[in-house]
């Protein structure tokens, strides 16, 4: 049922949101009536989930098939040492509800693939791609385009990363940029690259900010281009990229009308250590 009023406790909890003219009471109610799906409960998904929960997002979905490993704790800040060996979605749900018991947390303890992703994505207002493999990212792009769901893409490695928000069929999508499925052998092996935890923290926080901006209709989204950053030298750039008329999913003669398994099996990120 749609929430239309705020209690005194809610006014207090969200006072620093509400006092922002860009959000206000109306924006806070929009947030509390909204739903965001975070795909991946790792380095990006951890801060994204926590900030969305703190901000009062009504429903947060979390999809991940992995369990918490000791090597995750350096960057996946929603999981604690006691959680090693536990399902990531269960661990994340527990923390979110400790932070904000008012959030409806829905967990998907499975690997999203071309068979199941669309029916999950379609239940949410905004999707956060917090995965770590290009195959998963293209799958999320395609599912969101086919379901007409806005999402925020992010990829990180080392000290660097890139972020782009996609409003389907209106702004540049990932396939406008990546015109062919990359060969798995060309992709950097996640296990051979490090990732600084705080870099994932910044990127995931930006993704949560994009979700909140979309829901509250405030500010300007990071669309039609990539925000790239290299925190080693503290460089941030916004690279404008127009929609591609030849895009395979949102172009004039789009050929992708349904999902297939070609985008999902390029590399098995569960076995290469993951860099989420």
């Amino acid at each position, binding site marked *: 049922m749609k929430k239309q009023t*705020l209690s*005194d406790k809610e*006014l*207090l909890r969200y*006072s*620093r949101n*509400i*006092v922002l*003219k*860009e959000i*206000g*009471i*109306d924006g806070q109610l929009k947030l509390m009536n909204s739903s965001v799906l975070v795909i991946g409960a790792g380095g990006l998904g951890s801060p994204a989930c926590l900030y969305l929960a703190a901000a009062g997002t009504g429903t947060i979905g979390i999809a991940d098939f992995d369990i918490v490993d000791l090597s995750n704790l350096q960057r996946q800040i929603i999981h604690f040492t006691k959680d090693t060996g536990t399902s990531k979605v269960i661990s994340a749900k527990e923390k979110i509800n400790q932070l904000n018991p008012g959030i409806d947390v829905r967990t998907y303890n499975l690997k999203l693939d071309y068979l199941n992703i669309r029916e999950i994505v379609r239940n949410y207002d905004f999707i956060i791609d917090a995965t770590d493999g290009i195959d998963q990212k293209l799958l999320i792009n395609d599912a969101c385009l086919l379901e007409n769901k806005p999402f925020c893409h992010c990829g990180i490695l080392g000290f660097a990363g890139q972020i782009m928000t996609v409003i389907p069929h209106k702004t540049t999508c990932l396939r406008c940029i990546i015109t062919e499925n990359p060969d798995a052998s060309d992709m950097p092996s996640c296990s051979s690259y490090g990732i600084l935890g705080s870099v994932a923290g910044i990127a995931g926080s930006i993704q949560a900010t994009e979700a909140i901006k979309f829901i509250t209709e405030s500010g300007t989204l990071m669309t039609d281009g990539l925000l790239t950053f290299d925190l080693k030298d503290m460089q941030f750039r916004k690279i404008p990229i127009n929609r591609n008329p030849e895009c395979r999913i949102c172009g004039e003669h789009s050929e992708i009308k349904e999902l297939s398994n070609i985008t999902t099996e390029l590399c098995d990120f569960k076995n290469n250590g993951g860099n989420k």
Partner: protein
Amino acid sequence: MNYNLDITNDRCPLTFIKTAYQLSKMNDGDILELLISEGEPLTSVSKEVEEYGHKIISVVHVSGSTYKITIQKSSDEKLSEIS
């Protein structure tokens, strides 16, 4: 209609948020009698209420550190930004 709100136990920014929220639920011309503590709450809420286009009819000392501000709601474009 007349409405009452006691924010003597609240601190900034909740003082302003509760006031703005109450005003957002009222109609143009309605009166809000606001009980508020002296000092920063009285000063800042009075200023913010006027900035959002409402009319302060009176400010009266009630007792101790408590004051009563009588506000007449007036619709203003700026108010919609917070409410």
